[in-house]
């Protein structure tokens, strides 16, 4: 067990190094960098000293040095906890991310809980009442959820909420609470705004989970051990939850690990952009567009770390849940 963990940790470190390097290379691939864009902007505005300013920046951020030096400097600093500076905001990446981390985690957790709390029971219901009216309705809705991109749904909901219901639903807080300290009113205000991203994730995120849960459970319900449990005199509900669902849910543990944690950064970035949510997602997408390379690189490295940790956790959880799986 300890050996297994150490080995997984070793692989994880190698993976993070490789991913950070490759992402650095990819960010550098497009011609020019953040400063060439900035230069163009300044010149367009007719700023005479633009050239000098830019050269200053270039020296400051080390962009004039060779690629490998840039990468290693950033990587070493990264290990020390300094993720570099965002060109766009001219502030440390660490502060920018830290500012948004809390809201991002709250949103990710809310999304996760809502998705699972809705998806699992609906999937179970869909399977045990296969082909009933309820199953058909759930199936239709989950296919719509699977087929419709989240940002499109976000636009539709925004239209309904703002134009028809005349509600202020953008962002996570109303204007008066954005910079206010935490208070009861602020929490209520947050909940008033949170339902929109939550609803969107409930529709788009649950679709797949419902289908997986339904399919797994249908397959499990046909297994002889389910009939054997019933023949032992168990209640139908016990047969379904204790024997069938208990087995059918195992594959979902893997999904939990590989989607939930990385979802904190990458999840629903487009939805967040549409809804103007103060999460890390929009920041990340923006940094890629603007070649804000330290910001983008940091996001990618954290994304990788969360993915690896999520996978490791789900593997451990799965081994704990299913005695047939051994870690070695």
């Amino acid at each position: 067990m300890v050996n297994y963990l150490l080995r997984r940790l070793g692989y994880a470190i190698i993976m993070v190094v490789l991913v950070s390097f490759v992402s650095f290379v990819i960010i550098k691939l497009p011609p020019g960098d953040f400063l060439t864009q900035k230069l163009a902007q300044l010149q367009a505005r007719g700023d005479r000293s633009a050239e000098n300013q830019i050269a200053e920046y270039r020296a400051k951020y080390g962009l004039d040095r060779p690629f490998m030096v840039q990468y290693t400097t950033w990587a070493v600093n990264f290990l020390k906890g300094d993720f570099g500076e965002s060109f766009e905001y001219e502030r440390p990446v660490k502060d920018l991310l830290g500012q948004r981390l809390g809201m991002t985690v709250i949103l990710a957790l809310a999304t996760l809980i809502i998705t699972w709390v809705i998806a699992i029971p609906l999937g179970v219901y869909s399977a045990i009442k296969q082909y009933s009216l309820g199953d058909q309705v759930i199936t239709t809705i989950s296919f719509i959820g699977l087929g419709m991109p989240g940002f499109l749904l976000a636009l539709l909901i925004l239209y309904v909420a703002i134009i028809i219901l005349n509600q202020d639903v953008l962002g996570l807080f109303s204007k008066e609470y954005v910079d206010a300290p935490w208070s009861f009113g602020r929490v209520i205000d947050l909940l008033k705004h949170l339902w929109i991203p939550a609803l969107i994730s409930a529709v788009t995120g649950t679709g797949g989970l419902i289908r997986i849960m339904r399919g797994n459970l249908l397959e499990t319900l046909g297994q002889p051990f389910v009939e054997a449990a019933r023949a032992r005199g168990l209640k139908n509900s016990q047969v379904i939850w204790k024997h069938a669902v208990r087995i059918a849910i195992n594959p979902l543990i893997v999904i939990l690990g590989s989607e939930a944690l990385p979802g904190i950064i990458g999840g629903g970035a487009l939805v967040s952009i549409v809804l103007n949510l103060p999460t890390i997602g929009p920041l990340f997408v923006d940094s890629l567009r603007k070649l804000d390379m330290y910001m983008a690189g940091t996001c990618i490295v954290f994304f990788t770390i969360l993915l690896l940790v999520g996978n490791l956790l789900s593997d451990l959880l799965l081994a704990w849940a299913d005695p047939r799986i051994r870690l070695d």
Partner: protein
Amino acid sequence: MNDVLIDVKDLHVEFDVRAGIVKAVDGLDLTIRRGQTVGVIGESGCGKSVTARAILRMVPKPGKVTSGQVMYYRKAKKGKKHLKDEVLDITQLPPDGEIIRQIRGGEIGMIFQEPMSSLTPVYTAGTHINEALSLHRLIPLQKVGDQMAEAITTYRTVTKDEAREIAIDMLRKVGIPKPTERVDSYPHQLSGGQRQRVMIAIALSCEPEMLIADEPTTALDVSIEAQILDVMRDLQRTANMAIMFITHNLGVVAEMAEEMVVMYMGKQVERAKTVDLFYDPKHPYTQALLKSIPKVGKRSNERLATIEGMVPDPFHLPTGCVFHPRCPMFMPGKCDKITPTYKQIGENHWASCLLYEDV
């Protein structure tokens, strides 16, 4: 007839599938007495397993019991939850109700064809047995100094420690080596034979009145099969339990059962003492079935007898006697017109064939 345990009367089970209605069980009568082993034999798809499930009120969807009765003569017994003698029609009980759940596992146990997948993979052998025990087994609760202890004994359910003791004891009884260790084994750590032994241990731990064994050895190899049959016979002797032994293996059933019922297309065609059935089969189907068993010592170049024709299409059953298209004794004008009745034709010998009717 006061020792009758299960009396199936004119049972019909139909499966409404897309292509039509399949009559899986079509007017079956079957009586099982206490302590008796009845073998039920027949080809695949003749309704043996569906009958067993109808007795436990768990016919799988889309199957339905459309008519008939399964009378269960329930007796009050110490350590069971019901307190009076009664006669129940199992087909009329609510399928997830309290009574049928007491019967399932508690009074009628069942073991299945596929031991490899009949145990839930995430629970140990002990957990499975414990689950059955906590549902059905009661322990007398006697108050110290109570003179009337016998008359007003109350019962309680087993505790976890007791359940574990019983589980270990049951595993020992069914012949699992090192039962104190095996009780904590997960199904995947056990062999096929061991898993079927665990299934038997689960079924017998609640001391049922009857055990339904649905082809319990089909998936096991021959030496394990013999061991499992031995275990079942030994335990039956000590527990005085009835067994409904479903199989398509004539050799196995000959070893186990006192009486045999032969089924064909959802109907019983013959019932007799095992000895009579083997030496003096009356129904042409039984005769053909027995001829098709390979015998040791027979000349090897001789072809094995087969039953002519094919099992009829379940959606278009033949008129009259369902066996007539394949029957070597087919009487034109009779067998294809008249449905034979199931009648006694000798001592403890019933058959449904027009050869034994005046028509």
